[in-house]
């Protein structure tokens, strides 16, 4: 077995960072309050000063801080991303999570000793793609897209010169991240360039007859939840649609559901995964505390040779449903 795997936890606010560290995170990832990261939501994220304090808090307790600069700067706005990289380096973050080749190139060139991780937003899903980023920018870790089975992950491990991080809990992204313009198509705000998926400013929830709830993104109906039916995020890839070959509206891409790989932790450790990532910088402290402590316990159990049990996290999941998604079976595809 490889070295002790790292538990990588989300922090949308300084309070969440402290809670994550206190709950047993080995590292915490966060972003600045602008388009340079993929969770550029209102009221979320860190100022440079807050990040400085956050780094001190984490380092004082033996935890690391990973800075997500994982969106794609459109030509003409590169300086915002360049400044984010420079600020992150100056504040002593332990790694910068990059997706764009230009940002990676700038960071590697300007700050050659700064550790770089490759974001899931880069959609590097083959050993060749991963090796390209390692060779060009000295990337030390890749965050794999949530589309591979454990056995496929295992075979990638043996073919790449860097560490592997996989998601274990949270949003179950269906589209290849970093390759999705659905939000831009619907709203004019781009996930890749603005860091927002389904911007809250264009989300509306409307009551419908019979106690139903209609969710909208811009002008578009995304889903309708009947009274008592569990709800999901108003994202296009979790929406309900009609099509010629189906009688009823259906979840064309995926139903509201979250990823939970708690039961597969031992398998993932055996496959050689170096870091386990919990999704959810947009979630609350309550979520962070519960999920981080559950997975802390799970990973510790695996390392001690016990059966991991992350307990019941279903109430935190989208649509109050969980899945092992692509990790368990090729039939997910």
């Amino acid at each position, binding site marked *: 077995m490889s070295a002790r795997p790292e538990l990588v936890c989300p922090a949308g606010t300084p309070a969440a960072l402290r809670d994550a560290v206190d709950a047993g995170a080995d590292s915490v990832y966060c972003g600045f309050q602008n388009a340079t990261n993929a969770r550029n939501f209102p009221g979320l994220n860190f100022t440079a000063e807050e990040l400085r304090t956050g780094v001190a808090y984490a380092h004082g307790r033996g935890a690391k801080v990973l800075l997500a600069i994982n969106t794609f*700067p459109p030509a003409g706005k590169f300086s915002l991303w360049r400044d984010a990289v420079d600020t992150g380096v100056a504040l002593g973050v332990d790694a910068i999570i990059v997706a764009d080749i230009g940002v990676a*190139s700038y960071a590697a060139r300007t700050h050659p000793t700064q550790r770089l991780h490759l974001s899931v937003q880069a959609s590097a899903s*083959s050993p*060749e793609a991963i090796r390209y980023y390692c060779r060009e920018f000295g990337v030390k870790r890749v965050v794999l897209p949530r*589309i591979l089975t454990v056995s496929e992950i295992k075979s990638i491990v043996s073919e790449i010169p860097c560490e592997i991080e996989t998601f274990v809990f949270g949003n179950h992204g269906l589209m*290849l991240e970093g390759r999705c313009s659905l939000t831009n198509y619907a709203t004019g705000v781009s996930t890749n*360039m603005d860091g927002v998926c389904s911007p809250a400013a264009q989300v509306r929830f409307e009551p419908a007859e019979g106690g139903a709830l209609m969710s909208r993104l811009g002008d578009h109906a995304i889903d309708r939840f009947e009274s008592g039916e569990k709800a999901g995020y108003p994202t296009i890839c979790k929406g309900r649609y009609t099509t010629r070959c189906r009688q009823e509206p259906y979840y*064309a891409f995926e139903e509201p559901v979250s990823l939970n790989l708690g039961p597969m932790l031992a398998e993932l450790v055996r496959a050689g995964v170096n870091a386990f990532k919990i999704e959810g910088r947009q979630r609350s402290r309550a979520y962070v505390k519960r999920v981080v402590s559950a997975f802390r316990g799970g990973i510790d159990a695996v390392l001690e040779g016990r059966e991991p049990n992350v307990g019941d996290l279903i109430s935190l999941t989208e649509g109050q449903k969980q899945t092992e998604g692509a990790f368990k079976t090729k039939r997910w595809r």
Partner: protein
Amino acid sequence: MAGCVQLTLGPLLFHWPIEAKRDFYARIADEAPVDVVYLGEVVCSKRAPFSEPHYPEIAERLARAGKRVVFCSLAEVMLRRERQMTAELCALTDYEVEINDASGLAAIGGRPHRIGQFFNVYNEETLRHLVHNGATHFTLPAELPRDSVAILADAARACGVTLEVQAFGRTPLALSARCYHARAHGRVKDNCQFVCEEDPDGMVLSTLEGRDWLVINGVQTLSYPYLCLLDRIHGLQRIGVTHLRLLPHALDMIAVARLFRGVADGILEPAEAQTRLLASGAIPALTNGFCQS
């Protein structure tokens, strides 16, 4: 260079029967005023074996007709067969290669190549890095704003490379590992039985309120309306775009190419061309895509 924008026929994104495909490219070779034709399977590796045996003949015919032929790599590379396909494609020496995923960059080993619209090139830093890796031509992602395209065009010119944007056809919006065509029919990707062949322009998804909105093409999602930049041709040329990409659809692509050529050459007014395009009745809706400004 104004006045000599080149038209290209992008890769066929949909799964057509091989006979239809051969006929299509034969007509393109004989009649379409396009300078470059991109071949190859970009969306789904499972479809590739149907076409692969026929590509040499199709490519030769196009080349004989004076078209420049470029072979495209897969936009998503994950499985062993996909890695192999990409490696083999990048080993081609007779034809130029367009790379649509970083997997191809490792395989191409610095030899000259093109970068496709599924590869994230958003800024000059990225463009310059890829030029350094051997890229000679870029097709930009559809969602890039016009101002950014202009800056990239300047950077491309400074690096001595050429720049292409999509000007016609449903806009690719997303890729997934899951096959949504199979899912719609209660199957999974491994036993899809190539049901995507039923929809030569993709399968339309409508919202709960009945608005036709998205189109499914296997693992890919596209816009329902067809992008049409007839009225932007001169503007794009002015900012330094050298090539305009027409994506193939199951309609008279020769007529489409002629309209674009006519407008580019100043023979046709954009509005007149657009009217004629819609008059065919083959296109349900047009959009100017992400270029709203």
